Each structure stands twice: as structure tokens, then as C-alpha cells.
């Protein structure tokens, strides 16, 4: 690993370009069902898969790279190459002083949930594999500064596990999975033992399992009538992070961490303050509910410290509560190219955020924790 800036962004997004799937999936087999862009009569581009529009308001989630952050581009030619081209992205990383970038998807859903909704498991697998291959071919193959993480078919589990093994063998360093697959299509609840092979394979291969906030729109309040578009976008961005409260509450009590003691779990785009509170609350409430008497040898905070990670980017005052989360459990990020990214001023933002921290803790949060987690 080579460090020039001393900063790893643990939550960035690639923008899938129009040929990701058309180049890699069989046209004769899938025809127009494979993910592609269609231009509407009004000139707007729209991603379509299996005959359905994909849930993007524009054609790309690339607001930080736009001249106007409030506007999502509606035509592909207006999308900045910095978001979909690896060589251009390297320049964006250099401009922002970032050494390594951990990658999540955009068009495929921040947690791969778009393909998880497809009724046809064969089509789901083909879409997922094309994305995973593209990320190796055009990103990880261009520079080791891009840390690829695979998306997976959510079900059946044999297919999920097989794709994780295939992707990790090709170089993927993390596994992205939606935190609430049972809301995507008819599959068991995430707590069901049917998911044990998922936890087991991530534990065995020593790759973190990543839940990215925002994959379950139902658990986020929606802006109501009367919100101007930029205000609505701000509101959605704020509630996206805290929507993971329900995910963490369930996961801490679900026993998955207890049963898979070396599994590592990342709650991406989480921010910090609510997590610090929830961990203290979990210890208090689980004791009040008598859970130690129901076979919980470790407190929720101990499980969290052993196995979980939060990502942050704008947090400042919440860092005063870092010891509740564990300084070893916090990953920095720039969230590029989302509208709420600190790019291209991540260095200044980070310096301000971490100003009061001892040097050793700064290093942990800025790069050491991520380097260790992703075996860089």
C-alpha cells in the first residue's frame, strides 16, 4: 500500500456507464431486458431494466461533479467523466487528496437493491456479474487505488455465495448486500438462519459485509408537498443516514454477530452521533429487558466494537462521542460524487473535523482502520 495523502475514502460511488451491461450481457439472450439507457421524446435519458425504469431521478448520481449540485444530469452527455471513467476519477482523487477509494454502485442501487427487485433470478445474476466484472476490468485493473466491492444476487443463497466466491477470487474486497432484502422480493427475513451461508462466506473469505444507508426507501420519511427541490434533497440526505437506526437495532440483537464472531459489518453513509447514542441505549435497554438471561454473553457495545464499522464525512462535534463507537470502528469518507460529498475540499473538512484528536486517533480514522479492514 502506498500513501501520499494519508486519507482513504471508505464510501464512494462509481457511476455505471451505458455500456457496462450492453458490452457484457448477451443481446440474443436478454434483448432489451438488460440495463440500458433510453432517450425519451423530451430528450431526457432514463435507465431501464426488464422493461421498467430504474429508480434514479436523473441519468446519473453525480451531483458533486456538476457545476450545480442541486441538479442531476438528465442527458448522458452532460455527465462528468470523473464519475464513470477510472482514469478521470484518479485525477478527482488527486485533486481531493485521497489515496484509496472504496467503491459502491449507483445505477445498481447503493446496496445493489435494484437488481434484487427483479423477479427473474437469472437476469439478476447476469446483471450483477456484469457489474462485478466491469468494476475489476475498468476500475481495479486501472489502479489499485480503487477498492472494488461486489454486489450479489440476493437469493437463492447458493447463487449468492457462489457469486461472492467468484467476485472475491477476481479481486473484490468487500460484499455489498441490502439490509432488508425481504422488502425487495419474497425472501426470508434477514434474521432467518437461511442467510447463514452469507455471513459464513464473508467471515471465511475475510471480506467485510456492507449495508449502505438508503436501500430501503420505506424506512425514510418522504418530503411532503411544498418542499422546494433543493430542500427536499437536503431532507432526504439527512434522513437517509439515520434510517439505519432500525437496521442497527435489529442487527445488534439478531445474534448474527454472536454466531459469526469474526464477521465484519460496515454501516456505510451512517454518520456518527446517532450510533454513539444507539450503542449506549442498546446496552441499557438489553439489560433492562433481561436479555443477558436469554443467552447474550456479550453486550451490544462489545459486539459492535468487535465487528462493526460506521462511516462519516461531515461529522465534527459527534467525534467527541467517538469512544462510544470505538476509534477503531470509524472510517472516513468523502461520499464522492453524491451531492453531499465534501469533494473537492475533503482535506479541509477532515482537518476541521479531526482538529482536536490526538495524532494516533486521526491516523486510525483517516486511513488505518480502512487499510486494515480491507487488507490494503
Amino acid at each position, binding site marked *: 500500500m502506498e500513501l501520499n495523502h494519508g486519507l482513504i475514502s471508505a464510501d464512494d460511488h462509481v457511476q455505471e456507464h451505458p455500456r457496462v451491461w450492453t458490452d457484457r450481457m448477451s443481446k440474443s439472450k436478454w434483448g432489451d431486458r438488460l440495463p440500458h439507457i433510453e432517450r425519451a421524446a423530451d430528450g431526457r435519458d432514463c435507465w431501464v431494466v426488464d422493461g421498467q425504469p430504474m429508480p434514479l431521478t436523473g441519468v446519473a448520481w453525480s451531483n458533486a461533479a456538476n457545476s450545480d449540485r442541486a441538479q442531476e444530469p438528465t442527458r448522458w452527455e452532460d455527465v462528468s467523466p470523473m464519475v464513470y471513467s477510472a482514469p478521470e476519477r484518479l485525477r478527482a482523487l488527486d485533486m481531493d487528496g485521497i489515496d484509496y477509494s472504496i467503491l459502491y454502485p449507483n445505477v445498481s442501487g447503493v446496496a445493489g437493491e435494484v437488481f434484487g427487485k427483479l423477479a427473474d433470478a437469472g437476469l439478476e445474476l447476469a446483471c450483477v456479474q456484469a457489474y462485478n466484472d466491469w468494476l475489476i476490468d475498468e476500475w481495479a485493473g486501472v489502479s489499485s487505488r480503487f477498492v472494488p466491492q461486489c454486489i450479489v444476487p440476493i437469493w437463492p443463497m447458493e447463487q449468492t455465495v457462489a457469486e461472492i466466491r467468484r467476485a472475491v477470487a477476481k479481486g473484490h474486497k468487500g460484499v455489498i448486500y441490502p439490509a*432488508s432484502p425481504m422488502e425487495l422480493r419474497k425472501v426470508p427475513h434477514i434474521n432467518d438462519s437461511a442467510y447463514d451461508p452469507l455471513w459464513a462466506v464473508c467471515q471465511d473469505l475475510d471480506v467485510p459485509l456492507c449495508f449502505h444507508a438508503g436501500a430501503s426507501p420505506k424506512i425514510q*420519511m418522504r418530503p411532503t408537498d411544498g418542499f422546494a427541490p433543493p*430542500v427536499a434533497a437536503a431532507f432526504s440526505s439527512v434522513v437517509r443516514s*439515520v434510517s439505519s437506526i432500525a437496521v442497527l437495532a435489529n442487527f445488534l440483537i439478531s445474534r448474527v454477530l454472536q454466531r459469526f464472531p469474526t464477521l465484519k459489518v460496515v454501516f456505510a453513509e451512517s454518520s456518527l452521533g446517532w450510533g454513539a447514542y444507539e450503542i*449506549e441505549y442498546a446496552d441499557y435497554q438489553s439489560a433492562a429487558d433481561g436479555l443477558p438471561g436469554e443467552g447474550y454473553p456479550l453486550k451490544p457495545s462489545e459486539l459492535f466494537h468487535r465487528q462493526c464499522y460506521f462511516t462519516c464525512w461531515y461529522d465534527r462535534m459527534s467525534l*467527541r462521542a467517538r469512544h462510544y463507537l470505538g476509534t477503531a470502528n470509524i472510517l472516513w469518507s468523502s461520499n464522492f460524487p453524491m*451531492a453531499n460529498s465534501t469533494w473537492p475540499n475533503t482535506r479541509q473538512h477532515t482537518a476541521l473535523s479531526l482538529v482536536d484528536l490526538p495524532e494516533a486517533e486521526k491516523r486510525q480514522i483517516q486511513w488505518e482502520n480502512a487499510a486494515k479492514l480491507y487488507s490494503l
Partner: protein
Amino acid sequence: MEIKFGLISSDSHGQLGRDAYVSRMSKAQWGERIPHVIEVCDDKYKFPVERWVVNGEIQGSNVCNCPTAMPNRSYYPQRWEEVPPEVYEPGQRLKALDRDRIDAEVLFPNGPGGTFFYDDADFELACVRAYNDALAEFRQVSDRFIPLAAIPFMSPMKTIVAEVERAVSTGHLGINMLGDPSVGLKGLKNLGDPSWAPLWSVCQELGIGVHMHASAGLAGKLSLPQWQGYSHRQSHCVSTLRNFCTATQFVPFLIFSGLLERYPRLNWVFAETGLGWVSSVLEACDFEWDKRHLWTEGIRTRPSDQFRRQIYVDFWFETVGIQLRDYIGVDNILWESDFPHITSTYPRSWDAVEHSLAGVSSADREKVLYRNAARLYRLV
């Protein structure tokens, strides 16, 4: 009122007596629909148990949610005679306050009393009036009780406003609100809808706060489907733990909907939600406001300043939010005992206080323990 102990609970639960509704609602008009206590069979118990019944529907799995007032703290009374009068009789309840060295307490409902959604606005209104009258009697016994009025959600707005005015004239010092009424009942509007404006106006003019308790009826909607394989205790822990997700999303809603800007003297109180999350929510709102120049979109005041101007949050077991108090706003923090619910600090509330406030200056201690509440409810 006199501050003797220096501690006010901003979230406790007032149980009404078993005849509270029967003695106030017309038997001729409402008959057996009136909330009352009846004897029923429950396979789990060898003896006949009692339950509240409202509109013919049996409520809950006990007759009173008051485990911390019981000799065995995990027991929920199954018959009314087991319920300690300290829970429902105002004169007796003062003794519980003295025992726990608490000066005053804010009274949220202890079922039935939150909502009366039975597809009949007239029945709801009759229940709400009886509830508000019965709870106001606590304050008529002692000004150490701070009652919060229920709202007849299904009535026309002018009826809602009239009931708020009536309740305040009998001693109520706030209203208890759902996070999103449109989730609870079809036909009701979410709180961003302009039709609620007269309610916000009257509360602002009367100087009473709008209160939301824990999930405020919304957290179930903002959560994953609950795992059916959980034991009762696991399930209770998970659903309790996530309840504060309502406040973490509703505070940004208040800020970005412009509600706080339109009613800048109206206070909002979030009970049983803790504090620590406020730091990340305000940092996120400020970050977005800065980045997107939202002052050009009608959100004139910085989100964290809006919060400090008119929002209050409660704590009880917590240390993290106390460490972050300067950023949350030391004037916006209230303490609560949650008597007589399972998580309550009663009867050793001061032990919990000392745990949370170790090392905190006496000026800050006084603010969060009673001065902020005394100011909010204009008690002194």
C-alpha cells in the same frame, strides 16, 4: 410552585382511575363503548384477569402499565386491585414523587388515552374530553403535575382548536401529538399539511408546546419488518431501541418543512428519545443548509439555531448526549423518570442523575434537571 428537590420529570405517565370515563361520559349515549375495566379470561392466568375495554375492544395484556411501581419490577398487574393507588390517585402519587425526590412531573398517557381511533369522530371527541378532564384533575390537586391534553384528531379543525383552548383553561400545559397522523388513520393529513395551521397558531398563542412521545406512532413504519422468531423480550428490546428514529427524522422535517420558521415561538418536545443523536442530525442539517444555500429557499435560520430556539429533548440513562450538551444546546435538554414504565429510574432517580451528570458543572446540572423544564412550562 416551590422547587424543593431540584428535579423535574419531563416524561411520566399518568394513569386514570377505573371510573374516569364511566363517570364522565353519557351512559345513555355511549353505553358499553365507554372505556372501562372488565373481567376477562386469559389462558396464561389461572385466575380471571381484568382489562381495559374501549369501544368493545380489549386493550393490551395487562390492566395497567406500571411495572416499576410494583414490588416485583417485571410484573404487570392483571387485576385492578393490584395497581398501587400511587399510579392513578393524584394525592397518593405525590408520595411517589416525594419518595423519588422529584418536584414535578409531565403526564403523558398510560393507556387508554393516547388515541381513540374507532371510526367515529363523535365517540373520539367524547373520550378525549373525558380524558382531558380527568387528567386536569391531577393539576387541580397539585401544581406538581403537568398534564398534556389529548387531541380529537378526527374532528374538524375548529373543534380541535376549541378542545385545546378548553383543556388549557382547565390546567393542561401542552398537547400530545402523533408523528404522522396520516399513518395512523386514513383521511388524516401529515403534519406538513397546511390544514394543521390553526392548531400550531393556537398552541403558539397559548404558549404551550407540542409533544411527541418516543415513536409517536411512527417508528413501526420507519422500521424493518419485525422478526417473528424473536422472544417477547428480544422483540421489546429491538422495537424500543429503534423508537428514536421518529425524532431523528421528524426534527429535520420540522426544520426543512419551514414549520419552525413559520411558528418561531412554538415549542416542540421529544420525550423518551434521548439526546446523543441530536448532534449528528443537526450537523447533517447544517451541512446541507450550507452546501445547498437553503437560506435562498426560504429556510432563513440555520437549522441548529432553529433547533435551539424551540426544540426540547429528554434523557434518562444516558451519558453520551450529556458529553455533547454544548453542541445540542444545554438549554434544550430535559430530564425524565418515565414513571411507572419498565425503563423508569424510579425510585432511585438520583442515582441515574449522578451517573449521567458526573463531572457536569452545577449551572448545567440545574438547567437540565429542572430549570429548563420550569421555564418551558412556566412553573416558577
